[in-house]
């Protein structure tokens, strides 16, 4: 097991290097660099010379491999550099936004799991009854509802019924948990509901499959309580596919909540991503992609570990 962990951790290095190479060179293939975008607007009179000077200032006049080495060297020191667009240090910028996005992602995941697993199990147990259909309708509705729209409904509802608006300014959790949760619970609910839909369907089908297994019949033949059969014998086996879905979705939530962030006035990673791409802010895009890639890789790593913990047949070498 230890050797598996070490091996997997070491394997992350080539993966991250590949991501770094890909994002670095792909961004530079995209037409229109940051200098052109900034100085050659509709009514721009910027001369070729001033563009060259700006490129020189940003280091874009250097050969591309040299740029890559400079950036890569910074990465190794944990330094993402400064934003080409704003000039602000990226690490600083990312820290707050990452904390916020991470919190929303974690809260959404918790909400999704709390919805999905009980409902999925219930639907499986009451297969083809009204309970199953109700759960199905709820989850299909969840899939069909964009979470930003649900978020808008939440805000309207709170405003109309309670004459109250969630705080629109971010307060870190450690400063005021109440204030923080009062703001973030709404996007987390909106996202979590949507996110629970897939997980509910997955839980239901995994559970149905497991309940048909011979070992469930063995457990029943032993005279165990239904509840014990479910919690001890069925759920653990059914959780493997559900875990994968939840983990992948979690990683997506970190950078993928562009519109929902706007609805709730959150300065998360999603909006930053869009802006960075729009501005061809190379350094910022690279930093964001590296961050999200890292989270993805870590999440996958933990899923693999969890698999091994849940299913003893899986032993990694």
């Amino acid at each position, binding site marked *: 097991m230890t050797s598996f962990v070490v091996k997997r951790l070491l394997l992350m290095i080539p993966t991250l290097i590949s991501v770094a190479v890909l994002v670095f060179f792909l961004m530079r293939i995209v037409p229109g660099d940051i200098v052109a975008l900034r100085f050659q607007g509709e009514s721009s009179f910027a001369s070729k010379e001033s563009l060259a000077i700006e490129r020189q200032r940003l280091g874009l006049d250097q050969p591309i491999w040299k740029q890559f080495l400079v950036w890569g060297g910074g990465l190794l020191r944990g330094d993402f550099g400064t934003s080409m667009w704003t000039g602000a240090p990226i690490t600083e910028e990312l820290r707050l936004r990452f904390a916020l996005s991470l919190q929303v992602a974690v809260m959404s995941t918790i909400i999704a799991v709390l919805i999905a697993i009980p409902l999925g199990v219930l639907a499986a147990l009451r297969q083809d009854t009204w309970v199953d259909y109700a759960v199905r309708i709820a989850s299909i509705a969840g899939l069909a509802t964009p979470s930003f729209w649900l978020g808008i409904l939440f805000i309207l509802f709170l405003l109309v019924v309670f004459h109250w608006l969630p705080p629109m300014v971010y307060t870190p959790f450690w400063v005021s948990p109440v204030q923080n949760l009062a703001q973030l619970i709404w996007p987390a609910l909106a996202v979590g509901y949507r996110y629970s839909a897939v997980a509910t369907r997955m839980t239901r089908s995994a559970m149905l499959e497991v309940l048909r*297994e*011979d*070992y469930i*019949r*063995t*457990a*029943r*033949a*032993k*005279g*165990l*309580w239904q509840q*014990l059969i479910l919690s*001890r*014998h069925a759920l*653990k*086996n059914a959780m493997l596919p559900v875990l994968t879905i939840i983990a992948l979705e979690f990683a997506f939530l970190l950078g993928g909540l562009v519109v929902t962030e706007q609805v709730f006035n959150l300065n998360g990673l999603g909006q930053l991503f869009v802006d960075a791409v729009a501005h061809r802010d190379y350094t910022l895009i690279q930093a964001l992609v590296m961050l999200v890639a890292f989270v993805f890789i870590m999440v996958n790593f933990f899923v693999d570990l969890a698999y091994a913990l*849940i*299913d*003893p*047949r899986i032993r990694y070498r």
Partner: protein
Amino acid sequence: MLLEVEHLSTEFATRGGVVRAVDDVSWDVKEGETVALVGESGCGKSVTALSIMRLVAAPAGRITAGRVLFKGRDLLALSEEEMRRVRGREIAMIFQEPMTSLNPVLTIGRQMTEGAEIHLGLAPPASRDRAIELLAMVGIPDPGRRLRQYPHQFSGGMRQRMMIAMALACRPALILADEPTTALDVTIQAQILELMKDLSRRFGVAMVVITHNLGVVARYADRVNVMYAGKVVERGTARKLYRNPRHPYTLGLLRSVPRLDEPRRERLAPIEGQPPDLTRLPAGCAFTPRCAWRVTRCPVDRPALAPVGDGEHLSACWEAVHVGREREAVR
């Protein structure tokens, strides 16, 4: 009588129609006795066992008629909770596939101890000691260490031993063993059967062995019920049935098995034809199309199980008195 199955019928709703897997079947088990249910795949022997345990998969499967008297109590009339207390505690079951019948993500210990913890209220250390004792009894070396392992770390034979130990955990009065050796190597099969016979004697547990293997029957069963198309077609002591089968199907089964105690015949005689489609059984005897002894009334008139010779030997065949080894030549 320990167990009396009376007029039991179990049906399955399938796409092709209603299948009567068990059709008005009656048989019984005495205390400490080993009774065999014999027949080919799909004859209803496993469904009979599952019906006794009331584990027929709902909603497709349904027990439609009959009584299952266990120590005088009708199991079919019990509430689900009362039935739960019978399962594992008074009637235990051993399944065919020791690979899929054990939970892959729980330790052997967990799966062995939970029955005793629930039914006998044993504390975990006590049920653990008991599990160790049982594993040792079924011949698994180093049981203390084995308890911490998972099913995939056991061989097929060991898994089946463990299933037997698990079935014994609450000292039940009856064990239903559904094809307990089918998935195992021939050498292991014999070991497992010896073990089961030995343990059933030692604890005075009655056993119902479900099998298609007549060799098993001859050696280990006191009495035999031969099933065909959901019905018992012949019943008797193992000795009688083996020496003097009185139903063409039983005879066919016996002749399709190689024997070491008789001169070698040139070739085995398989039973010709296919088992009948259970959704549309004929009005008469279901074995008619495959039967060499059939007479004109067979396809239309179903024979009941009736005594042949002494009262303990029964056969459901119009020609029961003629069926026998001596007629082989005629055929």
